[in-house]
């Protein structure tokens, strides 16, 4: 495995009533496509949000080590607010599950795409605008200018998700965390968005942490798959050895998702 761009160590997240993440360890390899899979409620989203401290009303413990382009390592959980602000969107950015509700309904899509760029680079508005249009075009949006002028409700879910992608990528982050970016889309737009993600990773060399509960989907694109259960990563599967699974819970997940890559073994216990 290449050096991790992001390494979660002994991460715990507690809400007032529940422990959502419980001593999780997980590396996100530099420039690779890493998937995090697990049943609903296993703590995938909470883990993702904890990385950039986007959870409200949660107690987060542990370490989140980020390795910058210069090789320097920082623990994001110990970073101060202003450091964090400069970090979010610039080094690590996010794409969320429901693109329509994740975009501000009363702000033009273009404005929302530009935001991270204006906050993190010295580009002028016109230059940022140019970059947004180029980016949309590379995401195979046919009329980038129209999409920029539109409000979210005027666009399809697939277009909204591409706009979200553009907003996440415009400041050229090194890690993209995509939390079930295709779940709210129809099968075809979902596949297109996923193919785009894979393509972007190749082109830009950024690390992708792709969260899904669909193991088959993860298998198709990922280099590494972290399998999550009850707030922990119980196993990391590698493409190199055919995603061979040892943990019974992993097999159960594989069987449920009708994966063909791993020979089915009888479920123990």
């Amino acid at each position, binding site marked *: 495995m290449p050096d991790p761009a992001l390494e979660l160590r002994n991460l715990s997240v507690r809400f007032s009533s529940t422990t959502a993440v419980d001593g999780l360890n997980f590396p996100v390899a530099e420039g690779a496509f890493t998937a995090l899979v697990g049943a609903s409620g296993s703590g995938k989203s909470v883990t993702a949000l904890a990385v950039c401290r986007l959870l409200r009303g949660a107690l987060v413990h542990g370490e989140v080590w980020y390795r910058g382009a210069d090789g320097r390592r920082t623990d994001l959980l110990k970073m101060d607010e202003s450091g964090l602000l400069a970090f979010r*969107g610039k080094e690590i*950015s*996010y794409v969320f599950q429901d693109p329509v509700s*994740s975009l*501000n309904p*009363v702000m033009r899509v273009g404005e929302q795409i530009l935001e991270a760029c204006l906050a*993190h680079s010295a580009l002028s508005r016109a230059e940022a605008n140019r970059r947004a249009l180029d980016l949309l075009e590379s995401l195979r949006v046919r009329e980038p200018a129209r999409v920029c002028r539109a409000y979210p409700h005027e666009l399809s879910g697939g277009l909204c998700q591409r706009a979200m992608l553009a*907003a996440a990528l415009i400041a050229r982050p090194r890690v993209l965390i995509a939390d079930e970016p295709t779940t709210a889309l129809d099968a075809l737009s979902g596949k297109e968005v996923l193919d785009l993600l894979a393509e972007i990773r190749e082109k830009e060399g950024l690390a992708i942490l792709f969260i899904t509960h669909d193991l088959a989907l993860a298998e198709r694109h990922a280099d590494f798959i972290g399998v999550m259960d009850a707030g922990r990563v119980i196993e990391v599967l590698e493409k190199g050895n055919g995603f061979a699974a040892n943990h019974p819970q992993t097999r159960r997940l594989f069987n449920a998702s009708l994966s063909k890559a791993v020979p089915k073994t009888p479920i123990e216990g």
Partner: protein
Amino acid sequence: MKSYGWKRLLGLVPLFLGITILSFAVIHLAPGGPSDAKAAFNPKMTAQARDRLREIYGLDRPLLVQYADWVRRLARLDFGRSFVDGRDVREKIAEAIPVTLLINALSLGLIFLVGIPLGVAGAVHEGRPLDRVITAGTLAAFSMPAFWLALLLISVFGVHLRALPVSGVHSLAYEEMTWAEKWVDVARHLLLPVLVSSLTGLAGISRFARGSMLDALRQNYIRTARAKGIPERRVLYRHALGNALLPIITLMGLSVPGLLGGSVIFETIFSIPGMGRLFFNSVFTRDYPVIMGVLVLGAFLTLLGNLLADLGTAAADPRTKTGLLS
């Protein structure tokens, strides 16, 4: 957008007429009448004299005929003459409007300019001391009887401290004052009435704005905005407030009719000759033309306010625009 506005405006006409029919019927069918009110204070009034009065006022005719007559005059914006002093109703209303309008405009301004920031500040600092203080303050203000507060303020600032005048709109020497002195004089007179009449509304708007802002802050797009690393100021005041203000625009439109509705209680406590007292007195003396005049004005403003609220929200919320254009 324009044609939508006109369509809505036309749709209001039957509604407006309906309101006038209802008001007209209720007022005329209510027990007592102008002649009774006069008779009550005049023991020498005979039955014949009373009938003659009814004839002069045209009250002996069938209600429908009276209403038709009233509408015909309304079409020429003629509200008729007061039964009490024979003066043109328009004149009487025009006399009462300025002071009421001034007080209400000032208190509405205060309500929105202070109430919204208070509520937003509370939401931004949710659960922290500032929010607690604002919440406690607004709840106290909301539950405090305004007339009681008015009397308290009068007693403190007017009677004990002698710092502020407590009745009327200006001093006796008003006419001899310079332009600047007049301003100060009116401001001193209106300070307490405006404060008192805005207090409840201010507390209400601030609670509403707090809820609206909290609602916006819980939305997914706020998480997206935070994930971009843009300044928190922008997250709060561009993303969240932009959405939180939409329902408040509706509320602003709905408060338009309140501009001319005078409060009988405050106007009586502070001796202000405004719309509240005019209406109260005209009801008391069964002065039908004046009552109807004030009601019509109120109905008109209410409908206008509703329309403004809808158009304002439509203009501010991109989601409604496509629906309007088609």
